């Protein structure tokens, strides 16, 4: 028996536009046969495996400020679409104010893959298993998108339509992922269950995040996002609402974990069974909430 490496990339044309408008126009004119390229860590695998047959790859990672991280103490963080995950992890501003993003990036593949992989690409690929998507969701992330009609913003909560499917239209180029300032006293954690300790895709990923909030009946708000257990990255609104309105503590975390268990709809696949995934969602959601609670003063 021989084990071969994956095949070489199929033929395509590499396009490097000079401006975002040029990129959007080209992508719109070639809808269905052109794809924006950031790090390529998902695209190349899909093309080699014969799933994607794009005629053009349009390199959008060095356009008009897409390579910058900007933090403003008054308005928050903006991570340019071309910023790779190692750069995000090394940013003092991200480390100081958004450590959950560092934790999420660290869980992705390997150092050399993260030299190419981007958060914007992870989001646009729209895999339910995307490791950085949960952090982006619980931190209130939004996308800056350049289309043929210019710029617009889109919240992440309504961005995902299905596996690999998003609200992006032909000609759209995501240029940045932005985050509001984190609430005072906030903390989060990402529990990722893979087949090995480091570097694997997730069987289940649970991102939990919490902060004190006087407008909530319980005095706290928690955000919960689940990976690899539904057709899209899943925000568990039922559990979030429960924790905002019931006294926070071990019993409430157990109930929130049960609500997460009920909300997820995993499938059986090569990485794990649906039954196992549901059980792990319950366990890791409770564990995540307990961990966050300890960090935010519980």
């Amino acid at each position, binding site marked *: 028996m021989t084990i071969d*490496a994956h095949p*070489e990339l199929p033929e395509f044309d*590499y396009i490097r536009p000079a401006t975002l408008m040029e990129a959007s126009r080209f992508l719109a004119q070639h809808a269905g046969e052109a794809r924006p390229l950031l790090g390529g860590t998902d695209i190349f695998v899909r093309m080699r495996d014969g799933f994607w047959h794009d005629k053009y790859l349009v390199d959008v990672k060095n356009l008009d400020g897409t390579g910058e991280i900007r933090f403003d103490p008054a308005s928050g963080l903006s991570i340019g679409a071309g910023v790779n995950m190692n750069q995000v992890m090394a940013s003092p501003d991200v480390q100081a104010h958004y450590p959950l993003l560092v934790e999420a990036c660290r869980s992705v593949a390997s*150092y050399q893959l993260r030299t190419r992989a981007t958060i914007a690409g992870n989001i646009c690929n729209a895999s339910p298993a995307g490791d950085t998507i949960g952090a982006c969701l619980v931190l209130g992330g939004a996308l800056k998108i350049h289309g043929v009609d210019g710029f617009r913003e889109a919240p992440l909560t309504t961005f995902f339509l299905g596996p690999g499917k998003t609200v992006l239209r032909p000609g759209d180029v995501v240029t940045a992922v932005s985050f509001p300032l984190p609430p005072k006293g906030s903390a989060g954690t990402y529990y990722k269950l893979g087949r090995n300790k*480091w570097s694997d895709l997730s069987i289940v990923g649970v991102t939990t995040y919490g902060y004190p909030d006087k407008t909530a009946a319980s005095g706290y708000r928690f955000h919960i996002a689940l990976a690899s257990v539904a057709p899209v990255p899943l925000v568990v609104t039922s559990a979030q609402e429960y924790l905002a309105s019931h006294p926070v503590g071990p019993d409430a975390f157990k109930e929130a974990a049960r609500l997460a268990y009920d909300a997820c709809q995993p499938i059986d696949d090569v990485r794990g069974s649906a039954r196992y995934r549901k059980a792990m969602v319950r366990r890791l959601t409770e564990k995540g909430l307990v961990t966050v609670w300890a960090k935010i003063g519980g």
Partner: protein
Amino acid sequence: MSLHRIALTVNGEYEQVDVPSQMTLMQMLRDKLAFTGTKNGCNAGECGACTVLLNGEPVNSCMVLAVECGGAEILTVEGLARDGVLDPVQQAIIDHGGVQCGFCTPGILISSRALLDRQPDPSEDEIRQALVGNLCRCTGYLRIVDAVKDAASRQRAMAG
């Protein structure tokens, strides 16, 4: 099929190459420039045998298009030794028996060099995390990790 002419530096030497869009950096290094120390293990960004430094940062060269590397500086395993003197990581891998079949070794050496460039005194955990993307099916990693630890201390001693 359109060809792109790119100019770049590989192991300190200026190179000009005509590459088709779909040619990877790994293919260009191996097939156009004969740097065959860069190995093709999986061609999917998982095994790390093709790891090279791109502008000082390690990448899987099977996951980078050659055309993206215009103006870049590339370091392959062939460029690690200087003036006939092995890099401390190379010498330590030899001394600790960190090579068996040797197929993963070029990638391990490049990832380790990149680690020591950004962290001259790494913990064992940091070494293991830096090598997560370099699969070795022979050694069980213990001797490799020992070698990188030793290379770090030799390098610090050399730096005085």
